[in-house]
């Protein structure tokens, strides 16, 4: 069982997202560690991109803060090295294809392997284009986490077959952001996935309350929260540790919602 799959064995599996380098490299390290310490099962680290087409305004703004702090892919790997001194929480990267492609697939996944990064989520790499990258990632033991959307329909089987790590199920149409009503026909999609693979399924996009995390953990294997956390950093960039800790604990059901 891989480190990632292990992360899905507990209760209320929770994946927290933050943009690497938001609002600074030091603080970003601190917030990742805080999430891990607060009980996050996986931390997803966004690699900022000039044109984050799949992200909403909250994460776009975080990317800008990270760029302002001088973030680069190399610095992100340095960040991870620092993180790794404090926690061995499973880490995955969220990155647009070009950042990895331009860094060099092999070089990128080699660094991931060295730093114990378990997987990559690439929003603009659908199954049709996966082959150029998956063999390289596999060579380095890094999962390429497939995304499934409510609109995937007949494509589901093709997408999830042979999947590793976990499957990222997009909860609703559109880009990342906070939504109050998460689409309800997720169950059907999850059934389709489960018919093909037993790779765990985590639901993301639009999740931001403990109830939603609990609900997702009932119909799927875990929940991903992005904008909810990034918003806390936006509100108090240099002092978000307590807020993040509390938020993650609530999501994990380890603390009461105030």
């Amino acid at each position, binding site marked *: 069982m891989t480190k990632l799959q292990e992360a899905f064995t507990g209760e209320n599996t929770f994946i927290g997202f933050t943009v690497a380098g938001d609002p600074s490299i030091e603080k970003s390290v601190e917030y990742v560690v805080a999430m891990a310490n607060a009980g996050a099962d996986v931390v997803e680290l966004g690699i900022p*991109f*000039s*044109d984050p*087409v*799949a992200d909403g*305004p909250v994460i*776009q703004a975080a990317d800008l803060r990270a760029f302002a702090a001088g973030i*680069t*892919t190399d610095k992100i790997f340095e960040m991870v090295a620092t993180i790794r001194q404090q926690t061995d929480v499973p880490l995955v990267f969220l990155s*647009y*294809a*070009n*950042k*990895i*492609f*331009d*860094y060099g697939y092999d070089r990128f996944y080699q660094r991931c392997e060295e730093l114990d990064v378990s997987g990559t989520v690439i*929003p*603009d*790499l*659908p*199954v*049709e*284009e996966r082959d150029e990258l998956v063999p390289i990632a596999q060579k380095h033991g890094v999962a390429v986490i*497939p*995304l*499934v*959307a*409510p*609109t*995937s*329909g007949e*494509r589901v089987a093709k*997408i999830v077959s042979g999947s590793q790590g976990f499957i990222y199920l*997009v909860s609703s*149409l*559109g*880009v990342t952001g906070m939504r109050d009503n998460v689409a309800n026909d997720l169950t059907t999609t999850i059934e389709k996935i489960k018919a093909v693979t037993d790779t765990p399924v985590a639901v993301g996009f639009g999740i931001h309350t403990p109830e939603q995390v609990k609900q997702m953990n009932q119909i799927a294997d875990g929940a991903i929260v992005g904008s909810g956390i990034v918003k806390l950093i936006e509100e108090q960039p240099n002092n978000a540790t307590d807020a993040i800790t509390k938020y993650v604990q609530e999501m994990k059901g380890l603390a009461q919602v105030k």
Partner: protein
Amino acid sequence: MQEMKSETNQTGRFGEYGGQYIPETLMSEIDRLTAAYNHYKNDPDFKAELKDLLINYANRPSLLYHAKRMSADLGGAQIYFKREDLNHTGSHKINNVLGQILLAKRMGKTRIIAETGAGQHGVATATVAALMGMECEIFMGKLDTERQALNVYRMELLGAKVHAISTGTGTLKDAVNAAMQEWTRRMDDTHYVIGSTMGPHPFPTMVRDFQSVISKEIKAQLLQETGKLPDAVVACVGGGSNAIGAFYHFIDDSSVKLIGCEAAGKGIHTDQTAATLETGRIGIFHGMKSLFCQDDDGDIAPVYSISAGLDYPGIGPEHAALQAQKRVQYVGITDDEAVDAFEYIAQTEGIVAAIESSHAVAYVKKLAPTMRPDQIIVCNLSGRGDKDVAAIARYRGVDLHD
């Protein structure tokens, strides 16, 4: 040479370029679009309706004009201009828009979205949406909406809603981002009309096919007038749609030199350039693997050109492939050269050509004198330059309070 015509495979590859690098959320819609396109492109009804619109609405065939004064003045090859500027709405953009919106209608769509830079593609889209009674929303960088307030009003006049996009650099690239996002949010009733040979498959192929009417006409018109093929075809390259349209039916004719003119801005050795084919490197963006202007870390770089229509950090994948195959030569034309050519063709032939097209004219000015009078250059005039007059005046230091 058969493979030279770069027929696309199933996922739209042109050599290593192309593909479908877009969020999964859109993939089913893209699959539907691909299927619909593959079906209708051979459907006699669809083809007949599109042909009728091209003739009776867009004003095709466009003239192939023998520029005798310019040919004599440059003292070399005979120069012919393919007059896409005489199309309804004033550029080649309408060819593609008619095709895509007709297709969208067949697919049952009732709403059209599109990106636009300077506004040409937005105006063409708003126009055809009005004609076909479809809802229309246009995404345009905030900076561009300010620079081109008139075109914003023009689109609104045509019934479109215009969204000013303030993310990123507030220019064309961000407008594409925003339109993509909007499509992701709402695709059931909505088709996204991409304005050039870019984006995920099937767009580069589909847009190229809709634009290839240009080279089809050139070939027939020139054969009829001279009995010959051209020796060279020259076109400007932004995303690449007018160029591929002008090149397509000559790709297999190895005697025909094909030259794409990209915007070098202040020069390809400065950071004020948009010459993707000369200064960019391979990357993945806006749904395709192609060449892009990027910074050291794989982020898309800001680009610059006096021409809003060429001011794009990428290039259609088919052009990247044609360059790799050395079938097409790509050259950079500076702002200065383009403005000179803009003035030259106005004063020599009485044609106010788009500043985009003037990049091609600038190269013709260099090329023609090196050729014999019995040789022929066809230069694609992709659009008219009325929209550019104020900017050219500013460039020349004339202050117009219009």
